[in-house]
């Protein structure tokens, strides 16, 4: 009964939106790595991570998003998070990531 991750990317002009739903944790975060690598490789100027469908995150999932943030920042890109709720929002607030990601 594991809850899998589901993600998709869509681009509109300078903005790439990555929608992540389900669970982003120690098991599923590695699946997101190719998506992150590609966004960094393409030096996308603006990345919006839509977490409105995300039910559960752990520190490994947070680490994946922090890595995305840092790597995009290296080429001057911006990363923001939208739609975080419930458990993921509580984790972001505890780790003070809500300010980093402009939640």
């Amino acid at each position, binding site marked *: *009964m*594991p*809850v899998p991750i589901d993600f998709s990317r869509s681009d509109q002009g300078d903005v790439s939106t990555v929608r992540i739903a*389900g*669970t982003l*944790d*120690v*098991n599923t975060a590695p699946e997101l790595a190719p998506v992150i690598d590609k966004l960094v490789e393409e030096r996308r100027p603006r990345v919006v991570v839509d977490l409105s469908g995300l*039910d*559960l995150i*752990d*520190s*490994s999932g*947070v*680490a994946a998003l*922090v*890595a995305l*943030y*840092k790597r995009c920042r290296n080429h001057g890109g911006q990363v923001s998070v939208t739609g975080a709720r*419930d*458990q993921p929002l*509580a*984790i972001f607030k*505890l*780790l*003070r990531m809500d300010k*980093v990601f402009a939640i």
Partner: protein
Amino acid sequence: MASASVIRLISPCDLRHRALAVRLIAEACRLARGERTVDEQSLSGAYDLRDPFDAELVSAFAEIYNNIVLHAYGRRDGETVEIALHVADGTLTIEIRDTGVSFDPSTVPEPDLDSLPEGGMGLHIARAMLDEVAYEPGPPNLWRLTKRHRPADAS
């Protein structure tokens, strides 16, 4: 008020069995809050962690479980974890026993959140989310996680 109950799970301790353990904790949270039946929505596949009590306990447990799999057992296959849940008077106590490498939690530094760490956040999350996090080195090592449900939390 839900009557006291004890639930035990003895399970392989690896990342394949992690979701099983996390699901057990999510359902035990409902029992601790006095909800007798499992939430139908939760059985459809998605976690229902809208109640802060559930969200905080599951968050903490998931981090401790990760620590056991990754650090105590070094991702080795064939290891076992025993999880005992005590549900009584709105308090959920989770005892987790492993036979992996012991450590001293007092030596784990608080993460420097301003530096945007990509690790070392697990124990910080667990401590912040619970009323008590106790650890006794073994074998078996024992983690005791305690959280009392306060109805005011359920806003």
